[in-house]
């Protein structure tokens, strides 16, 4: 059975699509920053940090860039499917289903990214500030 969302619903999908696209761009920028920061930590470790700390955190940060880029890619694809719900007629339900699948992939990637980020932050908490200094 075909179902068409109303004009007001389409406005919601349109704004959701735009927000998703902007966050996908922010996610791509974050992935690039993480990759650059991670590489800097591995290749140019700051001399004032204990030996081995910067390369270890750098490697984890580099690892964190992968799911961030992956999530951004899926969020961008989801934004296109969500945009199609608003801008086309006759295939709203398949577009919603496609968007839901893409959002699932994006949030799964986000969960992996958060796991890596959690390990990085826990490492910083444990290693860099063991006595609050």
């Amino acid at each position, binding site marked *: *059975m075909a*179902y068409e*969302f*109303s004009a*007001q*619903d389409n406005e*919601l*999908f349109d*704004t*959701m699509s735009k*927000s*998703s696209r*902007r*966050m996908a761009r*922010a996610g791509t920028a974050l992935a690039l920053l993480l990759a650059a920061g991670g590489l800097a930590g591995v290749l140019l470790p700051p001399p004032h940090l204990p030996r081995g700390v910067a390369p270890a955190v750098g490697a984890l940060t580099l690892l964190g860039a992968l799911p961030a880029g992956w999530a951004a890619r899926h969020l961008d694809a989801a934004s296109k499917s*969500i945009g199609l719900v608003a801008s086309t007629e006759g295939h709203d*339900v398949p577009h*919603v*289903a496609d968007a*839901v*699948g893409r*959002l*699932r*992939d994006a*949030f*799964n990637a*986000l*969960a992996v990214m*958060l*796991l890596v*980020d*959690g390990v990085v*932050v*826990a490492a*910083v*908490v444990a290693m860099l*500030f063991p006595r*609050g*200094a």
Partner: protein
Amino acid sequence: MSDGKGYEFSAEHDALFAALGGALGRASLGLAALALLFVALSAEAWHSLWFNGPVGAFFGVLALAGVVLAMVLGHTAWSLSRARRSVLAVGQTTGHDVGHVLDAMRTLRDTLRRLEAAAVAVTALVVIAYLAHHGRHG
């Protein structure tokens, strides 16, 4: 706004919504855990500021950034949890599938909008922390 009364998504679509609900739940848990870690990081930074005095200003700004980030992450975790409930309701209930989808989309859109604002705020705080760090080291 249409309530889509009567329209039911297929079992295949329900499975997709259930999978999205699972992903939202995992992301929400991850965000909550990360928020707690940032609270710990901020506590350590405040501790450094307390014992080092003005030279610990860098850690003070870092602590403030950590607290702001923890609040944003905690609120986002709560929003994703709300979106998860709406998404799971699509498969678990009958008669209001479209309404639940629209609720979930609205919550996700609002979450993304808040994250955009938070990204700008956190970037500003990181720049301030960087400037404070350079001021401290000359």
